């Protein structure tokens, strides 16, 4: 599939929030079976404005507020999917998906399998994730590894407005359940980890130019964000920009791959890159032990062993709960990533 197949309409400058909203707007208009709901999603338009105006446009039968019950939200979404709707449910913060774990892992992910296709769960669960916003323990987590480990789920995380819209439309159209993780640090602009510098807006960024109509991106294709020859950096979400800053500061010619789809993964793009460079650094915000980086490291080792010139490095959040005051000692910023880039080059 082409990266931007079937683009309709003119483009506009959008933040990630506006791009996500636009994706839901497009799908609500295209498919009468799409429904959008969650806490504060309806009248108010979401605590992050991602569903702003959608209830007014499509009515409360299509876009509505839900009780504060993550298990209930995902549970009714599974039932709606079994009926034949295409629910887009929102969990206000990824940190609060845990009460819905049973419905996600035991039900949504396994419904097609256990019923041999008799019933399916074509739902999308949106969750703002990630740190770098002084969110403390329960507004900063990156729980992607808890989803990538679950067979039957697709886990996706965009890093810019263009991808966010194309991937969200694809997720809504997908007949598999999709966990759609949105790095809230990127909602209003890209962020490279330099928290001491002024925030940059999306405005003017090439990936903020977003078609107003319908388009999709494939749910299993990585993007080479920055081509390079010396080493490969595997990243997603906010870490794509942190890796870019680190490459710039070290002067190393790093090939940065934005995975976009965490699982199922575009393994061929990863393998092709590491076989070319011979070195690999994996970067994520989530805690290190049994994080998704461990799976990436294992896959690279299995597929690229004879091409590796150095041990694979992982730069991740520490194995602690996400702190408040020590945010920038916790968040894997450009200095820590740069040090890893230098280490793999010195091996």
């Amino acid at each position: 599939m082409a990266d931007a197949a079937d683009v309709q309409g003119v483009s506009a400058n959008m933040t990630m929030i506006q791009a996500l909203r636009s994706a839901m707007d497009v799908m609500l208009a295209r498919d009468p079976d799409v429904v959008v709901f969650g806490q504060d999603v309806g009248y108010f338009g979401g605590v992050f404005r991602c569903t702003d105006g959608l209830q007014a446009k499509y009515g409360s039968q299509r876009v509505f507020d839900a009780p504060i019950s993550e298990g209930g939200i995902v549970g009714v979404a599974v039932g709606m999917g079994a009926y034949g709707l295409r629910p887009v449910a929102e969990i206000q913060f990824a940190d609060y998906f845990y009460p819905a774990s049973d419905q996600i892992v035991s039900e949504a992910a396994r419904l097609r399998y256990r019923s041999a296709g008799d019933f399916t769960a074509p739902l999308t669960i949106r969750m703002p994730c990630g740190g770098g916003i002084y969110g403390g323990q329960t507004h900063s987590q990156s729980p992607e590894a808890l989803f990538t480990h679950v067979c039957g789920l697709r886990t996706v995380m965009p890093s810019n407005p263009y991808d966010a819209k194309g991937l969200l439309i694809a997720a809504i159209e997908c007949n598999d359940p999709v966990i759609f993780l949105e790095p809230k640090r990127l909602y209003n602009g890209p962020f490279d980890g330099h928290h001491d510098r002024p925030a940059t807006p999306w405005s003017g960024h090439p990936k903020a130019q977003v078609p107003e109509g319908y388009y999709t991106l494939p749910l299993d294709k990585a993007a080479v964000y920055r081509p390079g020859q010396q080493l490969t950096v595997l990243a997603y979400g906010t870490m794509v920009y942190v890796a870019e800053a680190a490459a710039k500061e070290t002067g190393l010619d790093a090939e940065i791959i934005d995975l976009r789809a965490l699982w199922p993964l575009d393994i061929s793009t990863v393998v092709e890159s590491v076989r070319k460079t011979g070195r690999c650094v994996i970067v994520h915000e989530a805690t290190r032990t049994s994080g998704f980086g461990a799976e990436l490291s294992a896959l690279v080792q299995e597929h690229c062993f004879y091409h590796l010139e150095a041990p694979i490095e992982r730069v991740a959040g520490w194995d602690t709960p996400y702190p408040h005051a020590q945010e920038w000692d916790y968040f894997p910023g450009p200095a820590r990533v740069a040090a890893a880039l230098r280490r793999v080059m010195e091996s």
Partner: protein
Amino acid sequence: MSDKNEPGAVRAPLRLHVPEPTGRPGCHTDFSYLKISAAGEVPRPAVDVAPVDTGDMAHKLIRVLDQDGEACGPWAPELSEAQLKRGLRTMMKTRIFDGRMLIAQRQKKLSFYMQSLGEEAIGSAHGMALDEGDMCFPTYRQQSLLVGRDDVPLSELMCQLLSNEKDPLKGRQLPVMYSIKRAGFFSISGNLTTQFVQAVGWGMASAIKGDTRIASGWVGDGATAESDFHNALVFAHVYRAPVILNVVNNQWAISTFQAIAGGEGTTFAARGVGAGIASLRVDGNDFLAVYAVTRWAAERARSNLGPTLIEWVTYRAGPHSTSDDPSKYRPSDDWTRFPLGDPIARLKQHLIRRGLWSEEQHTAQQEELEAEVLAAQKHAESFGSLADGHIPSIASMFEDVYEDMPQHLREQMAEAQAFGGRQ
């Protein structure tokens, strides 16, 4: 009473309350904890009754058949002779089916089984009272919903139980975890209560689409303690979902008496009233009451009047499963002393009393159904079983995880096939 600030005040130490059943092995259960109304005593409100006005009913027991088999009171349904006989037949067939499958499990033809002994009226009458296209979200003990269907051959269920080459679920599921969409029977999950809130979502979807179909969710007494029970009640109430929320109170959750699930001094129906849902408590061994109350709740849901919670009071007469021995935790003669009796015996008595049935017909039907079940079993076993290795292919283990098989599963499938010695 001593003042809390008084020096030297002495208070009795606190003590944790842990509910216990009155009957344990070697003694009798005192069933007086069950609040039982006389047949015909509980009024039949209009289907648009305000939930708060069902508060009383949630502590009474709707019953139609009295101890002589006479249909009494405002809930007595108008059922034709054919419907009554069909109901009796479904209950008998379910019990015979359960009995045969229990033997098959003991013969190691199946790995596992769960009977519904004593609870046959609930699914049999409920299924008859629903419309085509309605969707049930059952637990593992509503097989009577399926046995009552003409379009579901028993052999299809047995192939699932046997995990054989004709198993519609391709050997992926533990026996009894059926999924038959065309029969309005949602895929059963091992995880308790998850389907209760899904039923609400299905009903919400029907309402969103302006459909006329309704959902029926099922849960046992023990599983009401799960958070999804609460989630289901909240969502059903908030969105006035067209759903019937069934709680089958058979008094036991494996070895745990219903008091440990929160049933002591209250009822499960009462929880519905607290959530703003019209709630009824019904004799689950009274086929006529189950039918009438289901019709009432279905009409309420179909008229956009909202959900109904129904506590069906019954008794789990058999072991929890083939892995369970109830003699370790309850009296062996408990069912014979249960005040609501046996649902099959009660409907049979009613039919005989009305001159519509006889002992001879009953015996003949019993023999006919036994032969039918046995024939179905032979047919199903002709497609193999887990025991004899005639199971679905290795490839089918990797299908349906996703709509399309991703690369990593294609690779794993090839690896498994290389080791499996069969395709």
